[in-house]
């Protein structure tokens, strides 16, 4: 087979064909961006401010406190990771931000969401739809369920550009072709007429990214964007998100249960447990000096590619709690090796720790605490 004719050769697109001679080491770029962000942080306002957000589901078994009093901020151009195990409230957080919670049974019961200066929870449904389409792009775990199987790929991308940017049909089509090549689909003009099932999982995820980018969003919300994909394809998609975010200055909220992915992609991390943010901070602080037993327990339990651990891995015993009618104790108390009486009678607040914006929810690691 001749290589140059093989479409799969160029499927990665120009930015992704890093050969060993010009390997991509993120160090310099990452550092530069971090500095620039720190600068922004001092001067500009936030792209997103979430204050005391709570989202509940009213089910037969009781009220599920899926997201409970969650507050965080996001800078323009920043990549924020939301990590945690399944069921801890990551997706519900993302859906709440864009008011896509199924209601009933779900309801945002309190809080404030300020996006680019706009009070999101005060918008009419119509205004909300516009905001979603124009300023926020989504990528979900399973691209097949989010693409319409009966419409061509080209139509679906162009439609987004047409409605949200007010482009003509022709201009929208051109934009779609441009976006498809941008996300690394070879022979993009020819592939405009293809249907989703004619694309592989990785290509469908690229299409989702193209749709998300069609309207030049300020924020990309990616909920487990690579969980359904193989590692080599995952690496392509992550590289794509990273380079697009660098190029367009798009802020990204990356939701993942994979602490490895978050380590390589994010500037800051929110660790969630049982509907709460239990630790937040710059990526290096979270991974090197975590101050919440759940956070370091998770990190310590992971086998690593660059480390040979003893035969027995450290574990966190027990299971995450269900979120129905949570008690007024530390939610990690039943699994925590360091638990004290105090943890069982009241719940700790998120309080500052060493490091910029570093906060943890744990009595034990507070200045007077017993884990020092």
């Amino acid at each position, binding site marked *: 087979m001749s290589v140059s004719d093989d479409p799969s050769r160029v499927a990665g697109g120009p930015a992704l064909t890093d050969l060993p001679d010009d390997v991509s080491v993120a*160090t310099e770029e990452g550092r530069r961006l971090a500095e620039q962000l720190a600068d922004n942080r001092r001067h500009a306002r936030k792209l997103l401010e979430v204050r005391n957000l709570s989202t509940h589901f009213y089910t037969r078994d009781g009220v599920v406190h899926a997201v409970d009093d969650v507050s965080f901020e996001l800078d323009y151009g920043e990549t924020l990771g939301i990590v945690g195990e399944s069921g801890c409230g990551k997706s519900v957080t993302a859906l709440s931000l864009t008011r896509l919670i199924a209601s009933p049974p779900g309801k945002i019961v309190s809080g404030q969401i300020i996006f680019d200066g706009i009070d999101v929870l005060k918008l009419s449904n119509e205004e909300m739809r516009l905001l979603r389409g124009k300023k926020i792009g989504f990528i979900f775990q399973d691209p097949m369920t989010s693409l319409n199987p009966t419409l061509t790929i080209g139509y679906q991308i162009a439609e987004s550009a047409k409605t949200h940017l007010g482009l003509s049909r022709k201009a929208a089509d051109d934009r779609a072709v441009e976006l498809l090549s941008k996300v690394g689909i070879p022979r993009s003009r020819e592939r405009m007429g293809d249907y989703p099932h004619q694309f592989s999982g990785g290509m469908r995820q690229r299409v989702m990214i193209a749709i998300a980018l069609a309207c030049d969003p300020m924020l990309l919300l990616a909920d487990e964007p690579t969980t359904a994909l193989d*590692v080599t394809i995952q690496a392509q998609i992550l590289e794509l998100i990273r380079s697009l975010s660098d190029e367009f200055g798009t802020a990204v909220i990356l939701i993942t249960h994979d602490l*490895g992915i978050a380590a390589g992609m994010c500037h800051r991390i929110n660790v969630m447990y049982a509907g709460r943010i239990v630790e937040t901070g710059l990526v290096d602080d979270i991974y090197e*000096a975590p101050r919440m037993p759940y956070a*370091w327990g998770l990190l310590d339990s992971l086998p690593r*590619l660059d480390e040979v651990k003893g035969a027995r891995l450290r574990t966190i015993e027990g299971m995450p709690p269900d979120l129905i009618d949570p008690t007024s104790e530390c939610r990690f108390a039943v699994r925590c090796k*360091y638990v004290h009486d105090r943890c069982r009678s009241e719940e700790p607040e998120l309080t500052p720790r060493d490091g910029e914006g570093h906060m943890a929810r744990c009595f034990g690691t507070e200045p007077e605490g017993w884990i020092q």
Partner: protein
Amino acid sequence: MTAAATDPATPARQIGETLIDVDRLKVHFPILSGIFQRESGRVRAVDDISFEIRKGETLGLVGESGCGKSTTGRAVIRLRNPTAGTVRFDGHDLMDLSRGELRKMRRRMQIIFQDPYSSLNPRMTVGSIISEPLETHDLAAGKARIERVRELLALVGLNPNYTDRYPHEFSGGQRQRIGVARALAVEPEFIVCDEPISALDVSIQAQVLNLLVELREKFGLTYLFIAHDLSVVRHISDRVAVMYLGKLVELGPPSAIYDAPGHPYTRALLSAVPIPDPKAERRRKRVILTGDVPSPANPPDGCRFHPRCWLYERLGRPEQCRTEDPELRTVATDHRAACHFAEEALQSDIGVAHMATDKVRHGTPQSATAGLAAEHAAEASAAAAALDDSGTGSPNEPSAEV
């Protein structure tokens, strides 16, 4: 000795002679089309692979989705008939056995499946799920059987009184333990673990992994451990086999596969694995593969990896890669790779995640086995080390497992 001696992940276990010998194994699936369901092609799911599994060892099998891992695992215990080739278990050719003989042999080999939700019959109690294999093999009856089931539940860390419960009353991790108990019921020597932890939550994965390691030590089990997570495979395996598109492309001890791989695909696969450490992530040299995995119904000529191979590109697209299918050949002691240019691949440092030396987490108690007091001490010295080293820590500090 074998890899176990050099790899601190596994305390020296006894690894002996070949238990399972797979020779030129092929498993093809017909592609049927048209109203007459004529065979119009073949999915070459497993296409001429040979390897051996030694008594007491854990052989890890890794590769991307659809490359043939599960098919290999099933063929090895003859849950699936091979299209060609032989599988010998303890010297017996599994294809030659009569039904009765095969049934007897099955007692010695079991499988644990990936999905703890669909692999247990929802209408059976845990007790009957676990005692089913005892019944099939006439192993224990009446009181003895009930006792044995309770014993097995306790062995996998479940409450022995749970025999009357149904699978839906258990979490994913607990269901996987039930699957393990069922596999252990007949006291097998060999277990195929087909992605046993992939469907579980992060904090539960380590629990089940520890259980598998414990049982391996306790009963001297031999595992074929199938997974797509290369970090997990490094942790549990004595040797690792890498598959690509129905072929075995590399086979060797973890030290070879992870630190000095001889196949460009292995290097690319390693590059793609994220490491939960931002500094390590920034340091790494990666190669990002372009394109998708081709279909096993229509694999590329020559070396199946050539359309995505970075070394092929770098070497100026040598013709040999396009015309000749490389054999799995020895490139170092106990280390085989299927690449015409394995020597070049070995020279590269692409993909290798250099051993972490600065992974002291300051501010974190490091010792897991000692009590709280010891943890405080460890913490104090870790913090001191952090200060001494202006934040980088030192490799000899208490981050090492005690």
